[in-house]
């Protein structure tokens, strides 16, 4: 059951081929096999959203998915959302609006918002809060996060 399986996917644009145990989660694969430690693990049961990554452009919980299930897919993590120099406009909006404190939930939230703000580029505050309701933050009370998203939306128009 634990015999390794082959796995080929694209991660942040790079082709990756590995042989992994089928039980290895996508989160552990990204963090420990590929050293992409920006993706964090908070609950391992799919509620907190800290491990959110984009799979073929859609947000998924990387703790609830096996790495081998991502075979043939394109995965984007927070590292992939980050430009070579500096920060993306959304990341900068977080820095400008105190959208993070400990920063542990932040990569998952950036992934969630990246997807959502592509789908709905002009959301209301309430819609942003709904979109964020699958990501838990214990530090900020969400206000800075919501403000960051609103500031980004304004600046993008």
């Amino acid at each position: 059951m634990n015999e390794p399986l082959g796995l080929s996917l694209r991660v942040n644009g790079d082709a990756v081929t590995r042989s992994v145990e089928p039980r290895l989660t996508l989160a552990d694969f990204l963090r420990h096999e590929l050293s992409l430690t920006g993706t964090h693990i908070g609950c391992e049961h799919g509620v907190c959203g800290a491990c959110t990554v984009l799979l073929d452009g859609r947000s998924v919980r990387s703790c609830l998915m096996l790495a081998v299930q991502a075979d043939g897919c394109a995965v984007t993590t927070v590292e992939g959302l980050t430009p070579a120099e500096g920060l993306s406009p959304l990341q900068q909006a977080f820095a400008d609006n105190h959208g993070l404190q400990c920063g542990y939930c932040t990569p998952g939230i950036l992934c969630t918002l990246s997807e959502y703000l592509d789908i709905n580029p002009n959301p209301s505050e309430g819609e942003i809060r709904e979109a964020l309701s699958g990501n838990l933050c214990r530090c900020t009370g969400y206000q800075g996060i919501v403000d960051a998203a609103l500031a980004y939306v304004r600046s993008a128009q």
Partner: protein
Amino acid sequence: MSWIGASVPRVEDPALLAGKGRFVDDLHMPNMVHAAFLRSPHAHARICGIDTAAASALPGVHTVLTNADLPPELRDHRLILMVPNPALRYPVTAHTLAQGEVCFVGEAVALIVADDRYIAEDAAELIEVYYDPLPVAADVLAAAAPGAAAAHADRPDNIAADFPMTYGDVDAAFAKAGHVFQESIFVHRGGAHSIECRGLIAAHDPIADAMTIWANTQAPHMMRNAYARMMGVPENQIRVIAPADVGGGFGPKGMYYPEHFAVATAAKMLGRPVKWIEDRREHFLASYQERDQHWDVEVAVDSQGRLLGLRGSLIHDSGAYLPWGIVTPFISATTVPGPYVLPAYRMNVTAVFTNKVATTPVRGAGRPQAAFVMERLMDRVARELGLDPAEARRRNLIGPERMPYSVGLVFRDGSPVIYDSGDYPACQKEALALAGYNSFRARQAEALRGGRYIGIGIANYVEGTGLGPFEGVNVRIEQSGKVTVQTGAAPQGQGHQTMLAQIVADRLGVQPQDISVAPGDSAGVAFGIGTFASRVTANAGPSADIAATVVREKLIRVAAHLLEAAEADLELAEGRVFVKGVPQHGKSFAEIAGFANGMPGFSLPQGITAGLDDTAYFTPERSTYANGSHAVEVEVDIETGDVTILRYSTAHDCGTRINPTMVLGQVIGGVAHGIGNALYEWMRYDAEAQPLTVNFGDYLLPMATDVPRIDQVHLETPTPLNPLGVKGAGEGGTIPALAAIAAAIEDALSPFGVHIDQSPVTPPYLLDLIAAAVKN
């Protein structure tokens, strides 16, 4: 310009936003192996035998440890009690791995180390433990009663400690009172639930016989000190480092735990670094919580609603062990008087063992419960005497003319409870103005005509912050001219690096982002306490100020020597010391440090000690008291019992603010935690003390849709107790939230006449209250 008081961008943020944070599970060491724990499935049982043979034989397993395998220092001794107290009858802590008896579900019984965590957990399943179940102390009230099942088999009862907290002649106050009102109140608080669970890497260097632990702890020095004492080794053979980033703390990461010692032992035995990362289920089972408090209280007031006395009893669920003694109920009992003139007070406190995980401070640390009790009594007084709740409070608030105000109690640091500064009536007034309090009754009547039940609630609090004795800070200018700052106080997202950089930047005339701040290393400064009790800005802040000022003076003295100028003629800016008005006639920090930090053969001017370096330990005389007022507007759905917060207004005074945006963030985050406590979070156990809520589906944290926008106004009353005038800001947002929300719900349901006497206020509880009221 001054950096103190400026909302400068946080120096922590760019790396965190780019996914380049360095949390403990992000660290990888060569040759590292991974640990998992086997934990007790019983709340109380004897261990009759453990068979680890099959687990040890599993390929990839390096070792399996039980209590018998530990070195004698750990095998035969329990963890050191953090804060002893003479009131403790039985100051018991846990063993590193259980010895003969388990006392809560989740207690660590065995440690497995393997090539990876998956194999370690496979091996845990192969361990056979033979348990003989014992009677269980589950509910705290039942456990407190005579003849209850004992949480520890060798104890006659479950009383961990009992002590009175008292001042004034309370019985005389009741004898002359115009009115006496009684309340029985239950307050449950849940866990801290930082999104990052606990974890550590331990690595032993056999050449130096030295242990290094990277742990996401709030208190590296306390862990170092405990390890040195327990293992009988010099402190210079143990170094504890909190990684650069720690994913939230909120209290429970302040303690050292059995897991820290077990993992360090395995690392030394194996000669390899060992990593253990707690998963969320373990966090629910084994990370310390706050939990149940039952209060029976009565208040005496005169005909005008002025407080005369308050008395009663508090029964506190301590859980199975007392890693931090009885700090939490102690703080609860000393916080009840709050911002009000209360002439006489007696609270009989009983801390009770149960077969559940230990309770220790969580954000607010026993104060939300105390504020809930006092504010519920205030609302009761107002209702009974026909006063507006704000007016009832206003009549009792301590006026600014009475500062400093001595309450009559002794705080946990042994110093008297003296409120140093603050304008409590002004604070309440500001919160009410922000909330539109005066127009609320019209809004409420209008809503009711539309079939909507809205209500408003208010609550005031004071918080002892900046608890001493000190937090050391080292400021140094390196040969390169780079300014570095070190402290033992480990941050978990508060922004300590930014806060300290702002203070040091002011003194040295450099930019905050040019200062390298390295907090959380026990090797950074000799002594340290930790990050809790809203204490770092008020302790490390002044230390940074003092150390940077000393370094500044040294810069000027050495520069005066090098420039052959008078000290009084020199000034600092942009990393240089120069003659006033002649910027080109000066020396860079690098040039000055090149000389002052030691150039072979060149003597220092007489009277100058070596190095552009100073370590300061500011020692506050006593805690400084922050204060605030909350006003909350809610809507209750009487069909579902659902509560929506419509408007949340806070007025907050924590003295001088180093970085107003970061203070705002602390207050809002604290309110969100309070909203969780008030409406959602409940760590439930069954009658056998089996935990029932061990995931985020069953235990609800507030979501972005649950927390409203928090409106804030700041008052700034600097404390005279430290040179910066700063008070703590980390917990104040949480403290009054439970009370204000409960009051608002009660007000919304005033047509039914319901009375709220517990927190959290859950939908089933509310529906029962409404149904009972309708029936009557």
